[in-house]
């Protein structure tokens, strides 16, 4: 029962990334708009504390922007699912150990 829901959920998430993400609005978001209008946007444009492998949801070794966004999104979906799933399993294991 849960397995089917998980598979459908992941397919829906992948479909969002494949079909909609490449066409998502590239306009500044609410906070960025306010930062531009109120003149403090440059404060956030210093060197990043840490270099991310996929800044702006792009794989920079792929030229095609849409493909790049799609792949970054699919990587993200995979990482999110696996990471949270593993954290869940670890928490469950801790719970079982405490019970014994």
């Amino acid at each position, binding site marked *: 029962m*849960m*397995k089917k*829901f*998980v598979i459908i*959920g*992941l397919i*829906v*998430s*992948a479909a*969002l*990334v494949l079909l*909609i*993400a490449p066409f*998502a*609005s*590239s*306009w*500044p*978001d*609410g*906070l960025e*708009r*306010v*930062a531009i*209008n*109120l003149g*403090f946007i440059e*404060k*956030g*444009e*210093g060197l*990043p*504390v*840490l*270099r*991310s*492998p*996929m*800044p*702006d*949801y792009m794989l920079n070794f792929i030229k095609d922007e849409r493909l790049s*966004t799609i792949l*970054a*999104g699919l990587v*993200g*979906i*995979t*990482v*999110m*699912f696996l*990471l*949270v*799933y593993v*954290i*869940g*399993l670890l*928490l*469950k294991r*801790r*719970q079982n150990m405490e019970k014994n």
Partner: protein
Amino acid sequence: MHIPDGFLDPKTWITLDAVATGTVGLSVYKTSRKLRERMIPLMGVLAAFIFAAQMLNFPVAGGTSGHFVGGVLAAILLGPFAGTLVMTVVIIVQALLFQDGGIAVLGANVFNMAIVGSLLGYYIFRAIKMPFKSDKGLYISAFITSWLVVVISSSLVAIQLAISKTVALAVALPAMAGVHALIGIGEALITVGIITLVKKVRPDLMSIEKV
């Protein structure tokens, strides 16, 4: 509304890092005590879905976009602590892998979107839903809470910017709350849409014990 590094001053982000660490620690503890086996895959799928949905910026007004956050959705489906946990993981991965939101200000983003979104969001949702008896109440409360939480979170960002002396509160607050009152409508519609869908295909997941 992911805050990048540089917008907040050290006293503000250090404080929020501490508050977020404590609250997320509490969420881990609470979740580990009450977590049921079948909720684990649901948490994973929700993290993946919320991440994907956050990538879909929709235009609002005047060259501005907004995107779904998902804290209230996570809270309604999972509960306040498991919801906070899932949202926290999403925000941390976004900062580390995608440079969406800063590293020093990670606590601020976790506070504004995960803790306010799921932990506070859950109790706002419960309070609004209380007088309703029917299913309609679920949708109405989900809509109001989702919108409200986006406006509250964005107002908190404005307050943090003001405390950091980045910008005056008198201009930041109406600007942030104003644009997010629009974005919040998108948040509310998506949240209600997903809940309607889950309730239709898997009504049992709605009554799963909240953590």
